[in-house]
């Protein structure tokens, strides 16, 4: 087992027993669930909307070279620059060199998961550049020196008292009653200074639009607006998979993204940036750069079976519904992208050290059922398990277990004898008070839980009896 896998199991065990964390997540998810359902009811046909989004992304991803080139041509025509980065080092290097050559001292960032993926902020900070995360949730986790807990709500794991304490320690101001309104006002005041001082604004992109050469950014707070309006340089950092063919595609994608992300009909600021400030415009950056990042995505593209994972619009719906995420929380994954989409994507982006995440699922399929672009997430977890086992080989003990299992499955009488022995054996063991001990084959479960009640009869016997009853009722 890799050390990342061992760490994951340790953190998952600790986090799922943390009662304060459980309560915070329960409240957050209940609030999201209600808003999400309300949001979906605004659609005449939600399934058609998902299908439409799937078709848009499918069209884009399966003609990725064409649409990226169209986008690039348009951005250049608008007076912008496009840089293609094969990996994190190239992307960070480009942005660092740009910042240094333009004498940038302060950067304001709006929320962008891809800049987390490439670990951009430390690279700029090494140059003595001050980097401000300006999304409130990101600002909070930056002050805590933590990665985002969730791809949409980065500070979901904290309650207002914890945020009050953090602001008191780091910003030197005490919001006496931990009133969210006052906490927000304090952050606004601090970040306004940064917005007006910054020479460079860095944003992500929810979509990049081929026919318009524009970057679409959805934010509620307005930090994305200020980051792309006030500084003299704007750098938009995005994965190559964010491209969509047409501006009008946003008529479906925007409402579906907002509904899946927060339950809103549409995000407050659905912003389109198409180049630097034009002559005659009142304000806006003088320079506009788009950094297109591959970082493993083209490898996933070559896997036709899993290509649709690149359709993801990072709404967070699969995290919110996932019973595993809800119990172990976002940080346990130790990845940029958490939850089901992170478990599918990370082994492709970061290699087999993260293969254990393919098993961080009950395969219940809830993630696939809510995905707004219809990605078959739980099947892709199975694909990853299969591919990993085929590549890495399996353990002799595992092969033996499966061989025995196979023999039992094709010999029903043998299976029945096995079941009988297990019921009798476990009853004896539990009678002796040895549940959860090293002798208990169900130890993984019963070590920390009451043992599962043992049935008197086998499932098959119960099934037969049930069928006989049904038959009798019919008569």
């Amino acid at each position, binding site marked *: 087992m890799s050390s990342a896998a061992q760490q994951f199991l340790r953190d998952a065990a600790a986090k799922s027993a943390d009662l304060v964390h459980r309560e915070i997540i329960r409240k957050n998810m209940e609030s*999201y669930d209600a808003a999400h359902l309300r949001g979906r009811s605004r*659609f*005449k*046909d939600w*399934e058609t909307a998902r*299908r*439409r989004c799937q078709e848009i992304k*499918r069209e884009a991803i*399966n003609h990725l*070279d064409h649409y*990226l080139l169209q986008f690039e041509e348009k951005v250049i025509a*608008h007076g912008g*620059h496009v840089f*293609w980065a094969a990996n994190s080092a190239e992307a960070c290097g*480009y942005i660092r060199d740009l910042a240094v050559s333009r004498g940038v001292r302060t950067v304001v960032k709006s929320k962008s998961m891809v800049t987390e993926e490439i670990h951009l902020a430390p690279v700029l900070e090494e140059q003595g550049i001050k980097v401000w995360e*300006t999304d409130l949730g990101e600002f*909070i986790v930056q002050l805590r020196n933590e990665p985002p807990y969730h791809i949409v*709500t980065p500070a979901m794991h*904290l309650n*207002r008292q914890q*945020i009050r304490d953090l602001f008191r320690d780091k910003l030197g101001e005490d919001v006496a009653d931990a009133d*969210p309104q006052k906490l*927000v006002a304090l952050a*606004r005041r601090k970040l306004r200074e940064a*917005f*007006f001082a910054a020479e460079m604004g860095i944003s992500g992109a929810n979509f990049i639009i081929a026919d*318009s050469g*524009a970057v679409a950014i959805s934010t*509620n*707070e*307005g*930090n994305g*607006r*200020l980051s792309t*309006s006030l500084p003299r340089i704007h750098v938009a950092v995005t994965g*190559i998979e964010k491209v969509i063919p047409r*501006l*009008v595609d*946003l*008529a479906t994608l925007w409402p579906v993204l907002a509904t899946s992300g*927060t339950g809103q009909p*549409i995000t*407050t600021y659905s*912003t389109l940036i*198409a*180049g*630097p*400030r034009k002559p005659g*415009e*009142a*304000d*806006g950056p003088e320079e*506009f750069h788009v950094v*297109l990042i591959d970082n493993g995505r*083209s*490898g996933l*593209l*070559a896997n*036709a*079976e899993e290509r649709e994972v690149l359709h993801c619009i990072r709404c967070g719906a699969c995290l919110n519904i996932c019973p595993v995420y809800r119990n172990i929380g976002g940080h346990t994954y130790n990845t940029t992208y958490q939850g089901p989409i992170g478990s599918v994507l990370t082994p492709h982006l970061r290699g087999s050290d993260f293969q254990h995440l393919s098993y961080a699922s009950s395969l219940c399929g809830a993630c696939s059922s809510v995905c707004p672009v219809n990605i078959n997430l739980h099947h892709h977890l199975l694909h990853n398990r299969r591919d990993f086992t085929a590549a890495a080989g399996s353990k002799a003990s595992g092969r033996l277990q499966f061989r025995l299992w196979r023999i039992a499955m094709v010999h029903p009488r043998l299976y029945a004898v096995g079941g009988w022995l297990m019921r009798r054996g476990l009853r004896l063991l539990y009678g002796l008070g040895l549940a959860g001990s090293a002798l208990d084959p169900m130890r993984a479960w019963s070590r920390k839980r009451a043992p599962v009640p043992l049935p008197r009869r086998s499932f098959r016997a119960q099934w037969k009896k049930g069928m006989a009853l049904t038959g009798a009722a019919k008569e």
Partner: protein
Amino acid sequence: MASANPSREQILERIRAGLRVPAAELEDRRFEGQIFEPVQNPLERFQQECKANLMECHLAAGAQETSAKLAQLLRDLPGGEIYVQDEPALRRMMDAVADGRAVRWSTEGAPRETSQATVTLADALIAQTGSVFVSASCGGRGASVVAPCHIVVARVSQLVPDLETALRNATAEQRLEKNSFACIISGSSRTADIEKILVQGAHGPIRLVVLLDLES
């Protein structure tokens, strides 16, 4: 700074190589219904959605009433400069209503942080989502986000039923060729990052007000 793109061709080549194996066809073709219920009464819907978005929408019958309502709005604001899109109709209106208040016009540069409010026009209003569609031509980028109050002066003829119509019009009118920026604004700035509790005025305006002239 490296202006060359050493990895551009490599990435494109990897993409093309990856796409040689086509994706499986989508099997299920059941979903061909209507995504949204068509908007029957755009004005009524716009007002409903504005309310849901916590925006203020004031209806006015004609230019005179619009001016009077704007004057009232400005009177109720704290003292200080306001930022106004430099446009003939707004110039005429402000001459009548400014009442000695300092005005900074968009042709004089970006809005100052101390602005108490901004007054702009819009490119369109969207009934489906209760949104205001602005672009750089509506006083620039900061005009709709820097001040604590954004007042939009619009005409009912600018109202379109839904997002799709708004985006089709924007494409047909080449709005992103003519402007470096556009935004569909659906309410005041807000956050729910602390315990999912809604707080207005996160980084941008706490108030978004639409003055809608019905006689246009």
